[in-house]
């Protein structure tokens, strides 16, 4: 008797109708959607189409070239700038400012962020100060910065460093806070000394959010270079953009903007590489 039952179960039931005459039908699939894939080409194609449309609108005279210069006009402006050699002067001046401002702001931010993440006193003081000072628009402080630091490179670097500092401090201390407590307890249970816990547990544990913070502060530094170069800069991409705006040279204005966004793309790529290197364990 049992063998008969096994046989019935083994037989594929779909071919023949059952005793009651009903025919087997497939269960309808209803799990589609809600899983956007990461198609790479689509983004670039969309960008190319947008630029093509933009160019068409300019060439066909649908828009006034003063209000929206065509991509070709922007390319020409960049080419002229490159040929005249001014481009490198602008770019190198800005790179120095962005680089040193970002470095100073990041180092200070990492130190303060760790202090806030590790010490009760620093946390109380630091969070209060950061909450109070972070939202101040740095441009509003420009006259003060000029009074304190003059109009040389110092106030320009300070503007960028200030902007970078607050974001970094916040991302570092939230990164420190996010290090799993059980890892710290584990290290303590093995009598690992404090400094070693900081270096070998908290630093690598906080690194993902520190690097995520870098992504933001790199953009902040690029944003602020325009404000920073409001202070008596003769060269620099920010100064170039400001001047083009003042002179209503919209093609040059957009050329500067394109260069800034290329900067942004390059920095983003660099951080991708850094993440892949340092966070391969994730």
């Amino acid at each position, binding site marked *: 008797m049992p063998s008969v039952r096994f046989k019935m179960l083994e037989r594929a039931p779909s071919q023949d109708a059952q005793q009651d005459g009903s025919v087997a039908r497939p269960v309808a699939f209803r799990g589609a959607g809600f899983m956007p894939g990461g198609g790479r080409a689509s983004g670039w194609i969309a960008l190319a189409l947008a630029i093509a449309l933009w160019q068409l609108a300019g060439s066909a005279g649908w828009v*006034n070239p*003063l*209000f929206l210069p065509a991509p070709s006009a922007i390319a020409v402006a960049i080419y002229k700038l490159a040929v005249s050699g001014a481009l490198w002067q602008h770019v190198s001046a800005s790179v120095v400012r962005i680089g040193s401002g970002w470095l100073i702001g990041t180092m200070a931010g990492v130190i303060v962020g760790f202090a806030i993440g590790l010490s009760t006193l620093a946390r109380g003081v630091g969070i209060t100060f950061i909450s109070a000072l972070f939202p101040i628009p740095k441009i509003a402080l*420009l*006259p*003060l910065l*000029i*009074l*304190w630091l*003059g*109009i*040389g490179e110092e106030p320009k670097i300070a503007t960028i460093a200030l902007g970078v500092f607050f974001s970094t401090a916040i991302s570092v201390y939230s990164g420190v806070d996010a290090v799993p407590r059980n890892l710290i307890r584990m290290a303590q249970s093995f009598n690992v000394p404090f400094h070693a816990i900081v270096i070998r547990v908290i630093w690598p544990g906080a690194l993902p959010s520190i690097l995520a913070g870098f992504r933001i502060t790199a953009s902040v530094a690029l944003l602020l270079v325009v404000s920073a170069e*409001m*202070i*008596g*800069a*003769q060269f620099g991409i920010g*100064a170039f953009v*400001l*001047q083009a705006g*003042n*002179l*209503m*040279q919209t093609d040059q204005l957009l050329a500067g903007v394109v260069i800034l966004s290329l900067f942004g793309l390059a920095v983003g790529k660099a951080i991708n590489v850094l993440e892949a290197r340092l966070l391969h364990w994730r």
Partner: protein
Amino acid sequence: MMKFARLALAGLLAMAAGGVARADDALKAKIGVLRLSSSAPVFIAQDKGYFRDAGLDIELKFFDAAQPIAVATTSGDVDFGITAFTAGLYNLAGKGTLKVIGGMSREKAGYPLIGYFASNNAYAAGLKTPKDLAGKRIAVTQVGSSFHYSLGLLADKYGFKLADVKVMPLQSLSNAAAALKGETVDAALLPISTARALVDSGGAKFLGWVGDETPWQLGAVFASPKTLANKALVTKLLGALVRADREYHDVILASVKDGKAEINDKTKPLLEIIAKYTNLPVEQVVGNCAYIDPDGKLDVKNVDNQIAWLQEQGFVDKGFAADAIIEKEYVKAD
């Protein structure tokens, strides 16, 4: 269906009739202007009803910088703009989106507007007159601005090279004032309104007025080609403005002594109008009276010089001169 069509037709006719009727009432227009006494005739014409007398219904749109007025005129947000010449304005005009139709404020001897100011240290070290500015670090708001051009004129006058001067564009008047006070520049070109408090508090030293050194045509009335098509509107507007120009010149400018207008029974009503529109007390307005030609004339030769200078500096696109941006039909040249 027929009924509906008839109804629609009637409605359209009524609307058209209404439109015509309103056009007959008054010509509507918007003027973009700064709250500065260099636009005084506009305020007088508006306040005393000269526009209304000319059959115009004028709305004043206030801006806080010269450049946006030029942009707003180009884009049609305002019909007329009244402000200072800037490199940006010339670049717009060079593309044919703006035309100059009349003169406004000027730098002229005896009427202080923009001045040269030295930091205390630079003054102590021998920077005493505008001539000494050669080779110094000088703050201006922006490259290609009125301040920058004034400095260029000074360089021409005293035969020094502008390239020898370190021009520091600080983007705003407050930044330039801060740099001067903080001794990080040797000198700055500032309008009297910004500089007065600085000099009075001992934060900087006065060197001279641009008007005394190098008179030039500072401001103008301009309009977009679309506005210019409406000849009646332009003619009426300029007529009302000249009426105000004349009154401003004969009453206020005539009373100016040592750079200050007198406050008397004749000048007071006009000064109060200017005070109202510029949000300044009358006592400050009197020391801040820009010269304006009584006939609304424009110094065309100087405009040509400005364009050439800015083109030479690379701030204005090459390939056009003053006559390309001036609407000769309306402009009365000096």
